[in-house]
């Protein structure tokens, strides 16, 4: 994207942002709450209109906010957004149903197996735990098979252990895909992403942090990782104080 600006209640959330997402890797977008990460994500998804002068392109196609999103993003939110009246299989194949296509049940079953819920094909979301539901959501996202996957704090509502497991699962399944993961947890960013961007300030700006190395999912006990974690925490803290002082808190 280039020169993208967005206002919220009269004030600029961010102004003149430029961002180039690397292809085929998971990039994390870190930042304090309220800075506008989710809005940026929704903007890329085509759900949020932005000011003229800015351009967002995915591959060759330009993103325009409108009724129909471009057919090249898959979106996964913090809530699982599973439809309560459809069973697990039905939810995974939701995209096809909404587009009036015939759902590929075989592929859906395979994905369900990959997220470890092979026996829960007919289960209604109300009978599944939070972690299980998010796994179904992950399967649904993968089912869409889009060039770009946008994830908005998908694991933050889960407990620590479940979160860890799902991070590993996501890292494994999302390998080789272009992912933009919004998170407020620097450890998560370090564990599963290849590039980390920090969004801070008001109006917010983007800066890049040092990229972690190694195969994802990374071991949280790794010394180098822990050092980077501490650095990130410091940077985020400083950024937060900056933005707080700007607001005049």
């Amino acid at each position, binding site marked *: 994207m280039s020169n993208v600006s967005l206002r919220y209640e009269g004030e600029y959330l961010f102004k003149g942002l430029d961002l180039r997402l690397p292809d085929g890797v998971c990039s994390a977008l870190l930042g304090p709450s309220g800075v506008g990460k989710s809005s940026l994500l929704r903007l890329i998804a085509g*759900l949020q209109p932005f000011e003229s002068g800015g351009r967002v392109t995915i591959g060759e196609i330009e993103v325009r906010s409108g*009724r129909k999103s471009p057919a090249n993003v898959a979106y996964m*939110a913090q809530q699982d957004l599973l439809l309560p009246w459809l069973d697990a299989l039905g939810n995974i194949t939701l995209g096809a149903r*909404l*587009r009036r296509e015939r759902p590929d049940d075989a592929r859906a079953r395979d994905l369900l197996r990959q997220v470890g819920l092979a026996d829960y094909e007919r289960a*209604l979301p109300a009978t599944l735990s939070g972690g299980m539901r998010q796994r179904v959501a992950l399967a649904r996202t993968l089912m869409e098979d889009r060039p770009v996957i946008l994830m908005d704090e998908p694991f933050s509502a889960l407990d620590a252990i479940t979160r860890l497991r799902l991070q590993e699962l996501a890292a494994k399944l999302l390998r080789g895909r272009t992912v933009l993961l919004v998170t407020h947890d620097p450890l998560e960013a370090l564990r599963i992403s290849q590039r980390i961007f920090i969004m801070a300030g008001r109006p917010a700006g983007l800066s890049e942090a040092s990229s972690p190395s190694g195969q994802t999912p990374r071991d949280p006990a790794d010394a180098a990782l822990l050092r980077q974690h501490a650095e990130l925490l410091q940077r985020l803290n400083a950024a937060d104080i900056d933005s707080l002082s700007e607001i005049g808190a």
Partner: protein
Amino acid sequence: MMRFVRPLIIVAGLVLIWQIIVWLTGAPHFILPAPARVAEAWWTHHATILGHAGVTLLEIALGLLFGALLGTTSALTLAYFRPARRWLLPVLVASQAVPVFALAPILVLWLGYGIASKVAMATLIIYFPVATNFYDGLRRTEPGWADLARTMGASRWTLLTRIRVPAALPALASGLRIATAVAPIGAVVGEWVGASAGLGYLMLHANARVQTGLMFAALLTLAFFAVTIYFIVDTGLRRALPWQPDNLPTEQEE
């Protein structure tokens, strides 16, 4: 087992309270007949009562059918067509603001003294709760779902039919429950204004002939059928929406 015994105990308790009230207040039989008197009247006239009950039940059933149909289509129209909201919504509100009793004579004059005017009355009374509840449900869809659907390339129509409508079905169910509870009112009011059959008519007739026992018997029969219809509709709705989260715990309890 307890499920069937409980209503019986409740009814028995109510009858006891009724008898106690009669004893305490010393109310004359032509104002508040004792349960025994009413039971006797019911037994003597049960053929007549049941015959009239059939007529009223038919009015209620047809009223529910038309009211629900009109209500759901109105709600869908309001949800899908933006200009409809400006024109149709005030009409919706007005339909409830006018008391049914005032409309009854007009309906009877237009539609005659047969069953049509009674069905029209019941339909009118049912229309509003169904339409508003369903419309509210359609409006209050989880915004996340709309976002998700749009990223998946759903059209406005698909969004309405595949997501908004199923999500609003619990709200529709609430509206239908209310409708079932008020349907008998519409039918009976219609009968009071001009009818030659039905439990409402029978009550008026019995009242004029100072057959207070029969009047109460007809009234209680109406109450019984109203409760039964409500129970049937409620159970049907709960079966039809098994995915409603709050259903499952209570089913497990029972």
